[in-house]
């Protein structure tokens, strides 16, 4: 079974910025056409300045049937564009890809749902959207309903479902999809942690059953668990196409290089076009010495974030990851405590304090997500790195570098004398 499932050759995709971008008005197009015609008549057929952005450039690879491939890279490196091309949503600008077999995607919950339709009707609609044949859905209908455990609500419009029920039903349909090639963009499937977890299980299952899987995720731990091979993209090109460990190492190194850049000018960020605030600076200080980027385990630490603009309802979420890129913990201001302080006089500055840092010595990374007005304002991976020096926690020395695990808990022992 070494047949090729996907073969890409010189694949590229560009987007035109400026003229004709997204919502150009008809008036502009008409006047532009007029201008060009006049230009041609007068003999100065100069082409208007068109800014072209290459989201993918000259990408070639082969994927065997049954392989599970991780697609990794910074935001904006071209991962999602690649999935769009492979799923035929968008057309490549250059090169080609040959895809053998039925392609299925796991989608954001509700993409294929219509709120006015009942659960039953939505199962058929969503199944068809995911690429299932009607006979196939009919055959598996009972299984799907049983899996979702909602026989009672089948004839209720989906708009009356709780979000949990919608997730269950959406997932039940997706779980019965049997594609030969499964494309998963974890970034697209966000919004519901339970759905994400289930998606991962489903993916592992599909991969085991011999299907080809292409998986896009920021979570290196899941990539490493599910994929043997990974492709690292940077600025639209393949940098590394290698066994997963090697590609992940390459990615971690690239992240660390990016972290040294000025945060405000980095382009690999999450966030929307209408963002109002950006992360300007993020630094970790030792709680006692105020020294930047080196902290001592067991002592206090503070993370200081400067943003460009204060936006109403600002929230901040920090994820701390270890040197392998595996997340250790997330600190989220939305899960508020009465000890939190909201100060209108503090300016565009956010501070997060940890009383006693329970991390063993080593190098750690911080990813940040900034929200405001209930929208994602900005997100940066590897916004900062910091080193933890060996320290003492609750009067007990910490394990040294190289010990298993990342955290240490304050604890006491009782032993025979």
């Amino acid at each position, binding site marked *: 079974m070494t047949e090729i499932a996907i073969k890409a050759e010189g694949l590229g995709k560009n987007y035109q910025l400026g003229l004709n971008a997204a919502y150009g008005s008809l008036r502009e197009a008409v006047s532009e056409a007029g201008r060009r015609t006049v230009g041609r008549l007068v003999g100065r057929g100069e082409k208007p300045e068109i800014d072209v952005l290459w989201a993918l450039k000259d990408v070639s690879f082969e994927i065997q049937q049954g392989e599970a491939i991780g697609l990794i890279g910074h935001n904006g490196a071209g991962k999602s564009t690649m999935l769009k091309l*492979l799923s035929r949503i968008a057309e490549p600008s250059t090169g*080609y890809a*040959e895809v053998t077999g039925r392609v299925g995607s796991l989608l954001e919950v509700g993409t294929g749902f*219509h709120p006015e339709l009942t659960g039953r009707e939505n199962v058929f*609609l969503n199944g*068809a*959207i995911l690429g299932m044949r009607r006979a196939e859905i009919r*055959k598996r209908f009972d299984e799907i309903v049983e899996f979702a455990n909602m026989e009672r609500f089948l004839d209720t419009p989906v708009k009356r479902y709780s979000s949990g029920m919608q997730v269950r039903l959406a997932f039940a349909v997706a779980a019965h999809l049997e594609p030969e090639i499964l494309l998963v963009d974890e970034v697209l499937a966000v919004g519901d942690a339970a759905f994400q977890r289930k998606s991962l299980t489903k993916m592992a299952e599909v991969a085991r059953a011999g299907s080809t899987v292409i998986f896009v995720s920021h979570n290196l731990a899941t990539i490493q668990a599910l994929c043997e091979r990974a492709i690292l993209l940077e600025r639209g090109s393949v940098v590394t196409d290698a066994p997963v460990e090697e590609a992940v190492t390459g990615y971690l190194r690239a992240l660390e290089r990016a972290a040294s850049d000025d945060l405000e000018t980095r382009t690999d960020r999450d966030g929307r076009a209408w963002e109002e605030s950006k992360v300007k600076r993020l630094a970790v200080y030792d709680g006692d010495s105020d020294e930047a980027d080196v902290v001592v385990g067991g002592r206090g630490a503070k993370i200081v974030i400067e943003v460009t603009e204060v936006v109403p309802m600002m929230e901040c979420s920090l994820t701390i990851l270890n040197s392998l890129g595996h997340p250790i913990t997330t600190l989220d201001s939305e899960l508020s405590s009465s000890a939190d302080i909201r100060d209108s006089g503090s300016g565009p500055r956010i501070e997060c304090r940890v009383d006693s840092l329970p991390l063993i010595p080593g190098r750690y990374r911080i990813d940040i997500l900034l929200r405001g007005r209930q929208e994602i304002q900005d997100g940066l991976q590897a916004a900062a790195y910091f080193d933890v020096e060996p320290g003492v926690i609750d009067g007990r020395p910490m394990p040294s570098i190289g010990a298993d695990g990342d955290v240490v808990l304050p604890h006491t022992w009782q032993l025979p004398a």
Partner: protein
Amino acid sequence: MSQQTAIKPTAEVELETPPPETIRLEATSGFGRVLAPRELWRFRDLAFQIAARDVTIRYRQTSFGAAWAILQPLAFMAVFTLIFGRFAGIESDGLPYWLFSLAALVPWMFFANAFLLSSESLVMNQALISKIYFPRIFIPAGVVAAGCVDFAISMLILLVIVLIDGIVPPIAILTLPLLIAIAVMTALGAGAGLSAINVRYRDVRYVVPFATQLWFFITPIVYANSALSEPLRTLSAINPMVGVIEGFRWAVLGNGSAPWDLIGVSFAAAAVLLFIGLSYFDRVERSFADLI
């Protein structure tokens, strides 16, 4: 779950799984996406589900349901009969004005609704378009197909009304499928073409309602086409709805002689419109996901 599988009859008919097919994805140019029959056939189940969805949601949670399909033309008929028939005294080819306008309003309402809704359909379905591949023509075509269900209902009621009134529809009623085909071609050609323009230029949203009103007045709905003098009368059928509506009056009410000249011109015009609409749709379809 395992139990469930166990009690399943083993002799169940397996779905035929065609051998995996290799599809080459590359930059395409020219035509041949919309009218690729194999591609359309491959996605036929999705096409059916989209049309079924559009039919189902149409009157969900409305008290009158599908009765709206006939209430609308009836309401217009009442107003028109009063204003144009009674007060303005517009000539109605010797027919009672209410019948004269109702026979025109039934196909017109189908066309106007299908045109308006299909021109907005791609933008309304942008979540799907930016996440899933399928032949995009199914979106506007599904809306037009859903409109056909309404059309069938209102046509049935029109026939009942005509029978009650004592008119026995002539043999010409057999031309209805042709007339309906012209109306569908017109709605799909104009609707699909404008829905594609709408992806890039949202101006369409403002143009269509306004264009529909203008179109209403250049179509002989409140007046009779016979009011025009000759070269103009036939030429006016370049507007495909002229042939449809004059055809309806003749086929359902048995009025006057067969307007084959109008129907012929309108059929040709509808075919050209459909070709232009689908060609444009086809040409820009590949960039929908990038632009929407």
